[in-house]
């Protein structure tokens, strides 16, 4: 739950990566880099604040509003501070058929929070997401890039315990 550092700036390695991404597109089409760069911003700060959006707008030489409208449209970008681990839980039909709703209730009870909330220790934020394209391996949730599949209560216990260390 750290505040965005001020002044806002990418680490030198990430700035290098951003420049490399901008170079992928034809000249004058640097706005195409917006979604990938916002992912990199989220990797650095955990979420995307309005200060970060303004900074990204400057890097890509576009208007701040062009960043705001994109960051608020796509659901992967967190617009508020989040916990250390963001659990993105699939709530869509095929996962529900496999008991996804029961496991979700269990997870909420275990963490003592609802969707959109963060545990008081700042470790976990819970977010409901739509289909993660892993329906044959449901119920499913994702934390950063990792998929946790075929969830059971026991697996949920293990995962939470592991990540609480």
């Amino acid at each position: 739950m750290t505040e965005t550092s001020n002044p806002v700036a990418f680490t030198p390695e990430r700035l290098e990566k951003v420049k490399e991404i901008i170079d992928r597109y034809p000249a004058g089409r640097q706005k195409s880099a917006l979604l990938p760069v916002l992912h990199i911003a989220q990797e650095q700060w955990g979420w995307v604040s309005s200060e970060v959006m303004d900074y990204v707008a400057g890097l890509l030489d576009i208007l701040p509003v062009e960043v705001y409208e994109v960051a608020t449209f796509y659901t992967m970008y967190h617009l508020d501070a989040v916990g250390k681990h963001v659990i993105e839980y699939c709530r869509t039909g095929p996962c529900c058929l496999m008991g996804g709703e029961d496991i979700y209730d269990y997870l909420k009870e275990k963490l003592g929070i609802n969707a959109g909330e963060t545990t008081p220790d700042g470790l976990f934020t819970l977010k409901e997401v739509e289909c993660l394209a892993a329906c044959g391996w449901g119920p499913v949730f994702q934390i950063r890039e990792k998929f946790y599949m075929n969830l059971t209560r026991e697996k949920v216990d293990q995962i939470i315990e592991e990540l609480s260390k």
Partner: protein
Amino acid sequence: MARKILTEHINVPGIETFDVYRKHGGYTAVEKVIKTMTPEEVVEEAKKSGVRGRGGAGFPMGMKWGFLAKPEGVPRYLVCNADESEPGTFKDHHLMKSIPHLLIEGMIVSSFALGANKSFIYVRGELMYVIRILEKAIEEAKAKGFLGKNILGSGYDLELVVQPGGGAYICGEETALLESLEGKRGNPRNKPPFPAVKGLYQSPTVVNNVESISNMPWIINNGGDAYAAIGIGRSTGTKLISASGHIRKPGVYEIELGVSVDEFLNSDEYCGGIRDGHYLKALVAGGSSVPILPAHLITKTANGEDRLMSYESLSDGSFATGTMLGSGGFIVFDETACIVRNTWNFSRFYHHESCGQCSPCREGTGWMEKVLHRIEHGHGNMHDIDLLVDISKKIEGNTICPLGDAAAWPVASAIRHFRDEFVWHITHPHEASQPGAVYRDAVLA
């Protein structure tokens, strides 16, 4: 064992690496097109193959390629749609993570055919780990001279870019995808102009699904005619089916188009039948958008013929008694499933994913979700059922992109085939939100 075009080598250890993929015949199609074929000849093979868009629309890929405008001095683009997000569909995810070079090889062959020197693979952002796998494969292919400048000394240049999405189902619609790739909100464009004339950066563009493009190496190596000889009628070749729900063996299966639904559902080679102790209630055959079918219309058509896994047979009887092959997202429901709850769930999905551009979709999806929520939670009234049908009809066909239709069909079809279950929810308010097994015990048993 059925013939495998895409997944023959998928379980070979190390197949994600260039060397192992190459050892199993990989990149021979690139050599063949670069050294012995003209772009027009490659397009011709795609046309002969009859391969149809595997993302859901089923439009012949070769014909789509034929529409690409080729004005002098204007770059052309190939964009691969890897924004797989249709509920029930996880085939492209499986293919890309397991055998990334197949898609890369398909992209090189297809880009050559279209005269594109910069091509994109737009992958949904949630699959960041798959993006890393693809980027690694691209680096390997480049190091071996199959990508980059002057491929295999031919003078042909190609750069491949993997682009992450940001979490939006709508970007699977091709013009929304192009908007997103330009760094904008995923609002679908009005057509015309079609992407083939004005697509990415207002240049001529082809957008094809992962699986469609991944067929190209085989088509080049074996010929379009050989591909067209597989399958049945206008459903040529093979199809990846993502099977989920109440079956014994969920997973991704490659079928020859034309295999019977009964065999796919019940044989041990595929789904392995309904899970033990239960029986089939309903099927969504092609991803959440397509009409749901009740048990008696799944393995047989309304005329009593065997239902086949093909574009034509699944849509036999139109929407009255048929459905669609769609993306191949095969979701199986046994008798413990609650149709009303599932319909509400799907409606919530479409409401959440509507881009909000067209009012019939923006307002209608939310309205259907609310009405379904109240029926499922014991607060519905009889008028609500016809209200849902009415809303669905007013969305269908009245929006810029097909998301409106995709939201309308599951609701309309669930009521068409399972009206009694909706009525029961309304007449039994105290039991309405109970699991589907309660309805089974009360009514079906």
